[in-house]
């Protein structure tokens, strides 16, 4: 009996079977590989955190080479003293605070306005001083932008790392480049009176070498105004929530 493949009933049955078979196979594969993928994502977070602390394998002037995945866990445990999250003003220790997903926290807050979001805080020791690494989340032009910022107790920037999910290559995507990230180092987030100013990504450069570290300004990338404003807002909005903690450090 020859199969009549042009019948409607056959077409529908074929489509259903194909989708079920393919769907099952892919779900199985994705489940099987999940532990490996998650281990990679953990390692990447550790790499990014260490990068903001200045531990990297950069050689040239424009390299962004993170520390090798072979040693990342060892180095991470060596330099990270403690991990906390702040919830409702309380500091709670949690060894896996660096894994707290900011998008998920924001979603919970959106669904339930009573929810007190957890604010991850990673404390590292660098050259005998405590350095505080804080994960950032904001929005660029097309998609989410994210990053990590390392601060000392006076809220002076020690290092940053920015990433993005889908900014324009050559424009907004350049926020992950050294020439954009490096000038943040040494910027003061507080003014002389202790007021929180953040760092503004701004045009109309009066300070091309970024020698003035107390002006709360770094140079923007031409052609990526919205991504740059996103970075400004991301730093301001995220770090504002940590201000009580930094105030408590001084007392």
């Amino acid at each position, binding site marked *: 009996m020859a199969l009549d*493949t042009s019948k409607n009933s056959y077409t529908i049955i*074929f*489509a259903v079977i*194909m989708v079920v078979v393919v769907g099952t196979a892919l779900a199985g*594969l994705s489940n099987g590989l999940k532990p490996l993928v998650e281990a*990679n994502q953990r390692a990447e977070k550790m790499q990014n955190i260490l990068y903001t602390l200045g531990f990297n394998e950069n050689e*040239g002037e424009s390299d962004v080479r993170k520390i090798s995945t072979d040693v990342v866990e060892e180095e991470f445990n060596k330099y990270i003293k403690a991990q906390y999250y702040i919830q409702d003003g309380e500091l709670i220790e949690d060894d896996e605070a660096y894994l707290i997903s900011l998008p998920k926290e924001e979603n919970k807050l959106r669904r339930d306005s009573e929810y007190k979001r957890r604010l991850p805080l990673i404390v590292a020791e660098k050259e005998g001083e405590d350095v505080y690494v804080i994960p950032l989340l904001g929005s660029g032009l097309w998609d989410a932008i994210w990053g990590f910022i390392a601060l000392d107790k006076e809220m002076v920037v020690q290092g940053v790392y920015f990433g993005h999910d889908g900014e324009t290559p050559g424009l907004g995507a350049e926020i992950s480049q050294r020439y954009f990230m490096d000038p943040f180092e040494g910027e003061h987030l507080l003014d002389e009176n202790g007021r929180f100013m953040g760092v503004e990504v701004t045009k109309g450069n009066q300070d091309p070498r970024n020698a003035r570290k107390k002006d709360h300004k770094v140079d923007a990338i031409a052609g990526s105004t919205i991504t740059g404003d996103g970075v400004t807002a991301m730093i301001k909005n995220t770090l504002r929530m940590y201000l009580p903690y930094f105030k408590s450090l001084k007392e």
Partner: protein
Amino acid sequence: MRLLSKRDANLILDPLADNNPITVQVLGICSALAVTAQLKPSIVMAVAVMFVMGMGNIVISLLRNLIPPKIRIIAQLIVVATLVIIVDQVLKAYAYELSNQLSVFIGLIITNCIIMGRFEAFALGNGPWESFLDGIGNAAGYGIILIIVGTLRELFGSGTLLGFEVFGSAVEGTGLYALGYENNGFMVLPPMALIVVGLIIWVQRFYNKELHEDN
């Protein structure tokens, strides 16, 4: 006894040069421009496309009498998409940094018109073995151009090959750099890939008169 009959051998060899998908049919240009700034992603992309095309052609060929003609293209798309997701997941698990570097382009293999083209033009009308050879051949033709372009761009754009410093260290100023040689920054930008592909087409046409169109 020969391993491959003459017809089978031609299925593999033809797309390498005389019927190359990139330089003769001018398909799959987008990814060829995007991933070839360095050699390593070019090689990975070539291997990924070879896997997707070889396997995809077999699957389509086995199903060729079962696929309802009305939803032919959708069925083909599902096969490509499945294989591409497999590649993507495996890369994410075993070569995470590389998968970040290739980012959307692995996903965009789905839209690579060489693949759909071979499914539609070849696998739907031929047996699995011939289809497999045809897929491997076309992917190799695509891959070889990617690797040539990737080699040229990484060598002259960054002075390295697979990360190995061929011309000496640009930072320390050793080797050729001591003589005043400088990397050509234009080579790592996408337009240069188009120019390099153009040059390859020019050279190929210069030697192969059969490719000339009649006026």
